[in-house]
């Protein structure tokens, strides 16, 4: 999608405009992207808000020319997720959001020097490897702008001296990677959660700015490795649309099938890990047993099990393997049978039911405000499926249901995923016999240059809306390539979901939220 209608606002107008949009039903802030437009353009932010009823999107941008102390107004009181997104923009670009209650770095160490995503910053020179323990402050700064333009600061407390703070992570079995939660406990009950991110922040977005377009593709697989197909699909689609490449029907269908296989793969892993977290180790192995079947399909056609590396600009790396259809057709009934086993051993189990029903509920409003897309959002009744709302690839040709549930608790989040496996199997079944003939790859120039402009493409990845925001200046490298993380909103919502529940519920809630850390940190 080419974004030619981005509305440019002066920082002073921003609040008013945003409040107006929020009142008009634009209640989902899907993107908040920090930008550095150089000396002339200044530092700024691109916003994307979406109306959850009409699925209409509105893009806006604002900028300030002050590079020493860039200050923009906050929108964190309008959308909960803006809290985290603005911290990200602060961390990478040094943009201060006046009125934001918690202006701390989020990905980088608190003693990091400079703002790495600024075009003129030299992060490696200023930051040698620090082997001392990371300082973690217990209080934070709030900035506000007085009427005469002076910036004042105020201290806010995160954890007081009486809080019993337990560090869950960065190396902890139930955080699914290197995620760090500082949890204030009262006995076994959780009082507050403060996520500390960035333990796997690899600077993918910065790397992209120096890579050629084909090279950028290689990194998408490594963001959310359980949505490798879909992430790469999104980036390929974004570049293809920007360059006006039409891929064949065949490619569309194959991509759709593989996306759905990837979704099943991810959801099986979700099931397995949840079982593992809750102590049902055996069910964990059943999940992995079935997942291997999908990995075999992937490996035979694409050459990789996890990092699949299959989509490419203009099509696919290679045509599907002759065995592909046969294997997929064998897999569909096999998986349908085994889902029943999952239900027998785990879903129905009274211990699991008691540990998940009513645990960590999110309301629909909360889910939208936090931007929790994917299964977590749909468990609250929020119909946010990108495949339905903004169809792409072959999704408008197939018939499938958007699985929705009402309660938004851990059990619903879990059931959504298992039901989506069945739904994905349906989609695959409809397509697998009808793969049209056609080229598996369109011819592209050896050096790919995307015409100047701003583009956005979202796909429904395994755990929500994955978006690719591309700003090109017509070079062979992107000027800015931003990925909308599917997991970041989920982590942001953890505090809301966990408060008042027990430390054992934290594991359940974290498990059912289903976040993947490398995707959060990018």
């Amino acid at each position, binding site marked *: 999608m080419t974004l030619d209608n981005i509305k440019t606002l002066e920082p002073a107008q921003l609040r008013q405009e945003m409040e107006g949009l929020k009142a008009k039903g634009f209640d989902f802030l899907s993107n908040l992207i920090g930008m550095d437009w150089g000396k002339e353009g200044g530092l700024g932010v691109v916003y994307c808000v979406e109306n959850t009823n009409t699925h209409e999107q509105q893009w806006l941008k604002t900028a300030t020319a002050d590079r020493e102390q860039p200050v923009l107004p906050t929108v964190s009181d309008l959308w909960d997720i803006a809290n985290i997104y603005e911290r990200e923009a602060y961390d990478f670009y040094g943009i201060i959001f006046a009125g934001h209650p918690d202006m701390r770095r989020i990905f980088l160490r608190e003693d990091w020097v400079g703002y790495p995503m600024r075009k003129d910053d030299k992060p490696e020179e200023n930051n040698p490897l620090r082997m001392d323990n990371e300082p973690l402050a217990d209080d934070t700064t709030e900035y506000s702008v007085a009427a005469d333009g002076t910036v004042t600061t105020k201290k806010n407390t995160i954890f007081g001296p009486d809080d019993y703070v337990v560090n869950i992570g960065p190396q902890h079995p139930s955080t699914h990677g290197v995620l760090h939660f500082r949890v204030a406990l009262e006995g076994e009950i959780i009082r507050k959660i403060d996520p500390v991110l960035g333990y796997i922040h690899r600077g993918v977005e910065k790397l992209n700015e120096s890579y050629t377009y084909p090279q950028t593709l290689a990194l998408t697989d490594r963001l959310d490795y359980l949505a490798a197909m879909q992430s790469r699909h999104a980036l390929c689609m974004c570049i293809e649309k920007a360059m006006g490449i039409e891929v064949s029907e065949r490619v569309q269908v194959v991509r759709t099938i593989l996306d759905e296989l990837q979704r099943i793969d991810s959801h099986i892993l979700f099931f397995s890990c949840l079982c593992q977290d809750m*102590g049902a180790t055996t069910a964990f192995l059943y999940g992995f047993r079935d997942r291997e079947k999908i990995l075999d399909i992937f490996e035979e056609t694409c050459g990789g099990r996890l990092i699949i590396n299959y989509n490419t600009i203009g099509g696919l790396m290679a045509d599907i393997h002759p065995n592909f259809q046969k294997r997929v057709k064998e897999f569909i009934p096999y998986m349908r049978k085994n889902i029943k086993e999952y239900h027998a051993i785990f879903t129905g189990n009274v211990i699991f039911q008691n540990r998940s029903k009513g645990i960590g509920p999110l309301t629909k409003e909360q889910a939208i405000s936090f931007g929790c897309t994917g299964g977590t959002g749909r468990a609250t009744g929020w119909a946010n499926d990108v495949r339905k709302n903004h169809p792409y690839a072959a999704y408008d040709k197939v018939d499938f249901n958007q699985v929705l549930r009402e309660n938004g608790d851990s059990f619903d989040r879990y059931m959504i995923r298992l039901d989506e496996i069945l739904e994905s199997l349906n989609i695959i079944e409809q397509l697998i016999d009808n793969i049209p003939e056609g080229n598996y790859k369109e011819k592209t120039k050896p050096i790919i240059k995307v015409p100047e402009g701003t583009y956005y493409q979202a796909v429904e990845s395994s755990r929500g809306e994955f978006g690719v925001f591309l700003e090109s200046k017509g070079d062979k490298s992107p000027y800015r390539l931003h990925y909308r993380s599917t997991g970041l909103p989920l982590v942001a919502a953890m505090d809301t979901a966990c408060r008042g529940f027990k430390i054992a519920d934290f594991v359940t809630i974290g498990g059912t939220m289903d976040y993947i850390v490398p995707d959060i940190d990018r």
Partner: protein
Amino acid sequence: MFDFTKVTNWIDALLLSFLPGWAATLVECVLVALVIITLYAVFAIILIYMERKICAFFQCRLGPNRVGKWGSIQVLADVLKMLTKEIIDMKNVDRLLHKMAPFLVIVASMLTFACLPWNKGAGVIDFNIGIFFFLAAGSIGVVGILLAGWSSNNKYALIGAMRSGAQIISYEVSIGLVMLTMIVLTGTMSFSEICQQQADLGWNIFRGHIPAALAFIVYLIAGNAECNRGPFDMPEAESELTAGYHVEYSGMHFGFYYLAEYLNLFICAGIASTIFLGGWAPLHIWGLDGFNHVMDYIPGAVWMVGKTFFVVFLLMWIRWTFPRLRIDQLLALEWKYLMPLSLVLLVVMALCVSLGLTF
């Protein structure tokens, strides 16, 4: 049925023939201690191997099979490694308590292990209040766990230990009540007499029929919880507390906890088979004299170990199937379901016995 007292009397007589009375007793004590420790180690190794194999089979995989035939000496390798692994000395811990805690656990476990009647006449600790002693000795273990959690100066360990304290003390109530139920049936607290009675009259689980069978189930649940094993492994709850109370222990100190966990499982199963399944008493079916005669040829120790391993298998099956409970659910299960049930069972059993409704 072979009476093991013949062997012990013969050894006693042999020693007395050339030693004064006190020295003979001393030598006997040392001998018995050696036998117990060896048995303890051997059973621990067998159990760990068994658990790893059984768990693998439940999970459609093979389990250890590269060290020795079918991986049979895998656990020996683990023990060797553990023995030669560093024991880390830590700052900021309560040294004395930290070092003492694993020994408390292992001592408690060995004391209870010694209570098991292996064969007719082969019970090490056997006196008229054997069950009482068993319960008392068993609860030393929880002190070890609490101390481990407290002295480690680690928040996870502390939470784990506190959970463990709450859990074990709660389930002790059920275990006590269930045992009381069976004492009402047997009229004795001595393990050897309980077994002898069952050899003569039939297994308690049949004699006490419905209340005894229910008591058996309650015992299995509560016993499993006492051992801190899944689905009641809250104190260690890997996914929440990394390793719970023993998170700071390394080398053989951790090894003690590891061994004690498996041996406690064995002891729990052993007591279940002693009290409910007849201990060393062979299976007799009324009216089938030929069958009973054949059964009598199988030695008592085989019966005892066989029954125990059967119960161990049941517990492992449960462990590898269910997810873990949450601490409040665990306590609710005890106080809302098991404790009332065992109280009812106690009353029902007393009624049955006084009305002569038992076999």
